[in-house]
């Protein structure tokens, strides 16, 4: 009876002590840091392109192949880019569009998405864009991509998988050992 009471006490003490801890890990955000490249700025001699970064509220004049990294958990939360163009001759400002962080784009991805932005103007003269996911070299070289991988973008998950497999093997071994021992007793 004393041990029973002790167990209850231990449980409640652990609750109290580890109130800041976790049982299931909090779910990670789906979005990843995203790096945008602006690929065809030089194709539009009549326009100048600008980007406003929400992280610092600064406006940048876009140059060919400029790149901007958007962080998921920046100082001001999820970062974003506002992009627009200005006609050099008329000084008329186009519509703007917003670029944000995006979900992982590859089954085996890094911690950052790489996306190239290609501008175009539609028939109504509205600024538009196409986005192309840039893949790491290994994808374009047709390298072997395993169907099942223990590797996860978030670090630490590999060791979790190994721990689980190891524990399963020990349990399986113990189970089989017990079964064999049981069989020998009957023989």
């Amino acid at each position, binding site marked *: 009876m004393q*041990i*029973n009471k002790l167990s209850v006490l231990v*449980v409640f003490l652990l609750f109290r002590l580890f109130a800041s801890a*976790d049982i299931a*890990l909090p*779910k990670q955000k789906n979005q990843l840091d995203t790096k945008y490249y602006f690929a065809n700025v030089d194709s539009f001699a009549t326009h100048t392109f600008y980007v406003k970064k929400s992280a610092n509220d600064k406006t940048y004049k876009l140059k060919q192949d400029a790149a901007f990294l958007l962080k998921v958990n920046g100082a001001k939360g999820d970062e974003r880019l506002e992009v627009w163009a200005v006609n050099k001759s008329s000084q008329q400002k186009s519509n703007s569009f917003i670029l944000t962080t995006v979900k992982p784009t590859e089954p085996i991805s890094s911690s950052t998405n790489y996306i190239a932005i290609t501008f175009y103007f539609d028939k109504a003269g509205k600024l538009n864009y196409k986005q192309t996911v840039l893949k790491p070299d290994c994808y374009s070289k047709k390298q072997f991509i395993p169907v099942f991988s223990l590797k*996860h973008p*978030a670090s630490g998950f590999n060791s*979790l998988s190994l721990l*689980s497999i190891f524990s399963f093997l020990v349990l399986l071994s113990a189970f089989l050992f017990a079964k064999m021992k049981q069989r020998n007793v009957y023989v």
Partner: protein
Amino acid sequence: MFKYLALTIAIEIPIYFLFDRKRIVFSVFILVLANCFTWPIINLLYQTTNIHLLILESGVTIVEAFIIYWFLEQKFSKALLISLVQNAVTTFLGIWINNIRL
């Protein structure tokens, strides 16, 4: 990361001994292995899929019940009850601490 696993084990083991106190060292060994087997799987699945947490926890409850039934030689109904209590406590503690929306 592993401190969370340690906390889960530290909470689930005393709960088991509320129901049964035979072969303490062996029981601790099996319960540690059971948690080392299921905890990484549930966290991997929870992080990488859209399967609801309670469905994942139900799966873990059944797996741990079978482990208790086979290794710790409890009746299956009792094993299921022990596992259910253990996982209900740790799940809802986790939900409460992390403000997880169900």
